[in-house]
């Protein structure tokens, strides 16, 4: 377990939006689902599409490359073609709205 890494402010990722950040060199996508911030690996496990450029609807993100879907809260595959789940990261949001990601 390493120290939390400050990656962004909640103002940068409004509800329903996603944001690419880097966490000690890992490409991580933040997702704001009705005010809750989730963090997942940015690359789709199918062919590396950038999920931060995909479409977030509820907790489901659709990959822009081949429309594979994942649940951003659990990393689970919702729809093929991917068959491997995503890496998820723990997040914390400070009172000032700073988003921290716990690096793995």
């Amino acid at each position, binding site marked *: 377990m390493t120290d939390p890494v400050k990656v962004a402010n909640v103002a940068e990722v409004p509800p329903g939006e996603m944001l*690419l950040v*880097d966490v000690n*060199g890992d490409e991580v996508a933040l997702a704001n689902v009705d005010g809750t911030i989730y963090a997942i690996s940015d690359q789709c496990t199918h*062919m*590396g*599409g*950038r999920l931060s*450029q995909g479409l977030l609807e509820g907790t489901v993100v659709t990959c822009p*490359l081949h429309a594979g879907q994942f649940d951003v809260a659990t990393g689970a595959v919702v729809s093929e073609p991917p068959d491997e789940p995503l890496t998820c990261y723990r997040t914390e949001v400070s009172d000032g709205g700073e988003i921290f990601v716990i690096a793995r």
Partner: protein
Amino acid sequence: MKLEEIDLLDLDRFVQGVPHDWFTFLRANAPVYKHPEPDGPGFWVLTKYHDLITVSQDFATFSSAHGVVGLSNSEYGGYQTDGDGDEHGQPQGVTGGADLMMLNMDPPRHTKLRKLVNTGFTMARINRLETAVRRVATEILDSVAERGSCDFVTEIAAELPLQVIAELMGIPQEDRHQVFDWSNRMIGSTDPEFQTSPDAPMHASIEMFKYADELANLRRVERRDDLVSVLIDAEVDGEKLTPLEFDVFFLLLAVAGNETTRNLISGGMVTFFEHPDQWERLGNDRSLLPTAVEELLRWITPVMYFRRATTHDFELGGQQIKKDDKVSLWYIAANRDEEAFPNPHAFDVGRAPNMHLTFGAGGPHNCLGLNLARLEIRVLFDELLQRMPEIKQAGPVQRLRSNFINGVKHLPVSFTPAKVLA
């Protein structure tokens, strides 16, 4: 066919059309092929779908940091880097600043630049542009409708991406065609129509840099909701972009946002002229537009290859690739890989699934503008099918002399003239 007949440096061959017979031969007989090069060490040519994925995702082995365009040492691939960019970030002739471009970078530096602009191109943001893109497309078709004929490339296909990317970047209307002209001169640097002198690409990039600086100065006085304003304020590791870093970012967005989609749309129109049954099928059922867009992307593959350089020895397909070798990834060939696509040489607007590699084969460099490109292509063909369903080819296709961009320079078309209601 013999392997020795294949010469991917023969640009005149590409003027006749993409040499798919060569690529089919390579996939079958030499999928990892060391292509000879006059006055140089040669370069690897990869044509198989799964090899492209392997290489694209392994960015630690296959680095972009020595440039991604240009196959031979002597070839003038346009705006490229030779890998020894000035450490002070000063221009060095034609390669000036190329090593500062995110296209020519590996993570983690690439990630830091990519995330500056990533947010502007998310699917949610781009989907909100549909009304605006449709308005621009309508205006473009209005501008030619009454004449009944035009050059499809310069008057239709080029206009939409130009207007849209310029709008996103914040380039004023009166300057847009100048930016377009510079972008032509850089990307078309191997075609005599655009390369008016050996120095033309360099002059064009210098002119574009000067212009970018002027626009940046305007935005420093007054910010707007555009990418230039975003880049002015952007910080990487707590530091603002240097003027040269800003300039190359501007250039990358302008060129990548223009040339690729333009050539997809032009090439798409040519493809429909060659497959009138598919045009009619799509016209009868426009719900096929999303799969038609993906099939056009697979079929045309506007960026035919990008290059990597190996950071250590690597075995691929039984071949020994040495450290510092040049490795070219032929997306246009992999998109017709018999092992990845059933009946790959059939153009089918209903093809599904269609996991083409036109936006990249995974890894950090997947196309930033993919959502925007899809939107522009879908909207333009949607409008064409409704307003000019009987559009016809009215003269010969003139193709770009390039082994990098699958491009069409001119395509005369005719259609039924229509009054435009003011």
